[in-house]
Each structure stands twice: as C-alpha cells, then as structure tokens.
C-alpha cells in the first residue's frame, strides 16, 4: 500500500516536474526572491525583511501553482491520463493525495529554499533577525502554499480544463489581492484576506507574542499594534479556507464523472 503511494508520487514527479518545469520554477524564484530584497531602510536595520519576501514571491507562487496544479489535475482529466492512472488500480482518494502531496511538497521546497537563502544571508548580519521569526515565516509560507494550492486544485477539478482553470484562478487570486482594501497599520481584519499582507503581519504578531511570553525584551513587554482578531482572521482564512477547499476538492475528485 505504502509503496504504491510512493510509486504514484514518483510517477507524478516524472510526469509533472519533468524538464524544464522544475528548472524554470527555481530560476524565477531565485530571481524574484533575491532581486528586490533590501535589508536596509531609512531608519536603520529593517528586521521585517520577510515583508519583501512575501510581497516579491506571491506573483511567482501563484503562476507556479497555476501551472503545476493545472497540469496535474486539469490537464490529466482533459487528456484522460487520470483514467489510465485509476486503472492501476488505485482509489481516487489515494491518487488525489499522491498528486496533491507531491506538488505541494515540491513547491514548498522551492519557495522554502528561497526563504532559507534569504535567511542565510541575513544570518550573516548576526542577531538582527531572530531565528524564531524565520521559523514563523516558514510556517506562514507553508500556509500560503497550502491555501493557494487548494484554490487551484478546486478550480482545476471543477472545470476539468487546464486553460480555463488557470484563467479563473488568476482572475480570482489577483482580483482578490487587488480589491481587498489594505490598512498598513495592520489593525483592519479585512486586510488579512490579502495573503501577501497577512503573512508578514502575522509573523510580526507571533514574534511579539513569543518575545513577550519568554520575556526576551529585558522584562518589558513589546507593544503589539496588531489586534488578536486580525491575526485570527488571517489564520482562519488561510488555514480554515485552505482546509475547506482541500476537502471540497477531495469530495469532487471522488464523485466526479470522468467519462
């Protein structure tokens, strides 16, 4: 059973990440993540450098997820590859998990490596950025990839078309990002529905919580301008929303008519 699941994952890797998909994704991610990150700002050291990371990589992440999940689900239904795979024989749920997990892990490792590269370059500035903050940044990157992947999977399974699903997904993602009003003080819960906004602000919130909890700031409490409701709004949207979309995709996969 386990080896069959791994076989499916390996097949997905060969089919969906063949040359030059992985290479293009890595090259664009390195360009996007390393080109525009500035480590200095007007008032001195900028400890919230991951703001630039999340801002800079959202576009690449959305495009990569659209291509990878669009090919994996939309195109394989369109070209009837899914029927061939199901004759393996393997259950639809197992196939869904194998495809989703493979693509999700690959994307997370590409973007995670990019975040790691930025983190490594910042560790050269010893003590400027706390390693705990980077752990939170990784956590939010995981949530971001999960949410975006779940949205695209749902669209791909609903439309059963590669091109159409990508079109709807891009309009949805960039439309949502564009239309959500942003309050840069971080005190408006609605702003947290924009994922490149929610991630860095939530990391800042968690870091302040962590510092206050352990009393790392010389006993004095770090002032938190971000209310709990905002943090919870962002977390619910990304984790809860991602989970709902993931389960909805699983249900569609199990019940959909492939003929």
């Amino acid at each position: 059973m386990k080896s069959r699941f791994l076989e499916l994952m390996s097949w997905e890797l060969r089919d969906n990440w063949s040359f030059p998909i992985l290479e293009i994704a890595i090259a664009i991610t390195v360009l996007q993540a390393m080109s525009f990150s500035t480590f200095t700002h007007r008032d001195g050291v900028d400890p919230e450098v991951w703001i630039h990371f999340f801002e800079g990589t959202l576009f690449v992440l959305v495009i990569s997820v659209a291509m990878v999940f669009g090919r994996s689900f939309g195109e394989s239904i369109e070209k009837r590859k899914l029927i061939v795979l199901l004759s393996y024989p393997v259950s639809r749920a197992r196939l869904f998990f194998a495809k989703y997990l493979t693509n999700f892990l690959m994307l997370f490792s590409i973007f995670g490596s990019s975040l790691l590269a930025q983190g490594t370059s910042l560790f050269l500035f010893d003590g400027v950025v706390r390693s705990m903050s980077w752990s939170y940044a990784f956590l939010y990157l995981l949530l971001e990839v999960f949410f975006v992947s779940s949205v695209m999977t749902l669209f791909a399974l609903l439309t059963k078309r590669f091109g159409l699903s990508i079109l709807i997904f891009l309009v949805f993602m960039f439309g949502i990002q564009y239309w959500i009003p942003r309050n840069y003080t971080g005190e408006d819960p609605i702003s947290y529905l924009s994922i490149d906004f929610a991630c860095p602000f939530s990391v800042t919130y968690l870091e302040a919580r962590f510092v206050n909890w352990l009393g790392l700031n010389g006993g004095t409490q770090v002032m938190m301008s971000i209310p709990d409701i905002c943090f919870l709004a962002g977390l619910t949207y990304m984790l809860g929303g991602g989970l709902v979309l993931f389960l909805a995709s699983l249900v569609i996969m199990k019940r959909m008519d492939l003929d």
Partner: protein
Amino acid sequence: MKTLRIGIIILLIGVSLLFATNMRTKTMKISTAANAPMALGPFLLEPRQTIIVLTSETPDNVTIHVVPSKNWEATQNISLANPVFTASGMRRLYAVTFRLETRGVYYFVVTMPNGTLIDEPALKFEQTGLAQDLYMISITATIIGMAITTYNSLKFIIKRKRGNISLFHA
C-alpha cells in the same frame, strides 16, 4: 541523467542569482540624522561601493567612522571600536567613497578632531555596484553547474552514439 539535471539546476541557480545580483545594484539613497550626539544606524550593509555624504553643518573638519555594530555596542568608544573605514577632514557636502569588504551591521559615527561625537549629525549614503559575496556565489554556482552539465552532456552524447537513448527520459 540525474546528475545532468542537477548540473542544469545548479547552473540555473548561478545564472539567475547573477541576474538578481545585477538587479540589486540600483539602491535607494538613504538620508539619516540624529537629534543628539550619537552614532547613526545600525544599517545592514553589503560588500560593495559605498558613498557617504555629510549633510549636517559642522563647526570644524570632522571624521566619519564606519564601525561594526558589535564593536560599537560593546565599547561606545571610537578608539576601542576598530572602525572598518575612517574619513577625516570632512565638512558639509563632502563626499567619500570606499569599498566595504564584509557584509554586516554597521554604525556611522561622526566625531570632532578630539574624538567627541558631534551634535545632531546627518549624512546621506548609497551603496552601488555588485555585492561581492553574492557575485562570488553566483559565479561559483555557474562554473560548477556548467562543469557538471558539460561533463554529463558529453557522456550522454557518447552513449547516444553507441545506442539510441532519448534525452531526460533515459
């Protein structure tokens, strides 16, 4: 074929990092001022060409020191802080250019000839050119990637001449 693909990935990382390093050469000018006699910063600086312009009025020729943050925070004394760069004889709107060798966090300390910090120092600085460490990493990755790719491509071509093997699906 796995090694060939690894080589291509390393090569692409190197080339894209080289592009990214080139795109980072244009940086914003940063103006900074203090309300009291104190060091300016700390700033995260990269190993590249750095231009400093003194923008505040000074009663006398002053000296600008670029000091690693750890040294400054430990000593708060310029004679003990081992500055990485010192420019003396500076007046308002004098500019000085130097190449920073190591990436790190630095303070700018402006002192009178007798060593005391000047009142309300203000300066403008800009970093231009390629960040040397990123440049070296990108070049190294490109060379390693190119070597692996070339070696494996040649091996593959020789193999293909002997038998029919399709690229990347062998």
